[in-house]
């Protein structure tokens, strides 16, 4: 039985957990976004053609890239720190490295999507 936690959104946003807290929140948003993507993928497999229009929309692609890539890169960091617990002491540096890797990969991916969207 879980604990009932009634915390308002504004109170949650004021929590000063900084980077670890934000990665936690973004990881959950990314996971939920990927779950929606998986559902849409199944719909495409069963032949719901209208979903293809959503997949080819550049706004949807950017949304999935921003949150999906973060989930993938953050998941790798969590896995590395979990499997090599001695590295937990350097978790802040690990998050900083993660932000840099994420910015590079996500920036490049968004550039490619936007270039295609503009007919480049």
């Amino acid at each position: 039985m879980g604990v009932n936690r009634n915390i308002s959104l504004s109170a949650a946003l004021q929590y000063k957990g900084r980077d670890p807290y934000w990665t936690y929140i973004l990881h959950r948003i990314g996971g939920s976004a990927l779950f929606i993507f998986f559902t849409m993928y199944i719909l495409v497999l069963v032949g719901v053609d209208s979903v293809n229009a959503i997949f080819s929309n550049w706004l949807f692609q950017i949304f999935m890239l921003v949150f999906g890539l973060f989930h993938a890169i953050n998941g790798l960091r969590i896995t590395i720190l979990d499997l090599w617990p001695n590295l937990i002491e350097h978790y802040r540096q690990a998050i900083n490295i993660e932000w840099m890797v994420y910015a590079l990969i996500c920036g490049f991916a968004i550039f490619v999507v936007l270039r295609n969207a503009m007919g480049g």
Partner: protein
Amino acid sequence: MATRTLPLSKRGFNFETTMWIFTRFTVIAMYGLILAGLIGALIMSARTGANLADILYWAFFPNLSGNPLGAYIGVTILAKLMVVAFVLVVSGHGVHGVLEILDDYFTSAFARRWSRNFIITYAIVANLIAIYVIWTS
């Protein structure tokens, strides 16, 4: 900062520990399958002269008409097995992740039990559809 680690032998093999290991290993499995898939698609696009994007699209969205791998039956079967494995790993990882999120919001035992029933049923149905379509495409 002192690290707090507990050896696996002292954690006990309960549901939480098993799913913790499963979630971490499925991350590694997904990265491995993506890497193997990309390298395989690069090799096969060079060998068949097919477009790399077509091979990737055919692999992950099997509604594309025609098989860009052509007469390479063994590779076609391997590609399908890899995609099926990827879907199973993704759904296993995802179902556990969604359950963790739902558990944070559903606090009553009744709601938790039914959210689990729903999400596990969803995963089984979605996997069966995916495996059928991927294998028969």
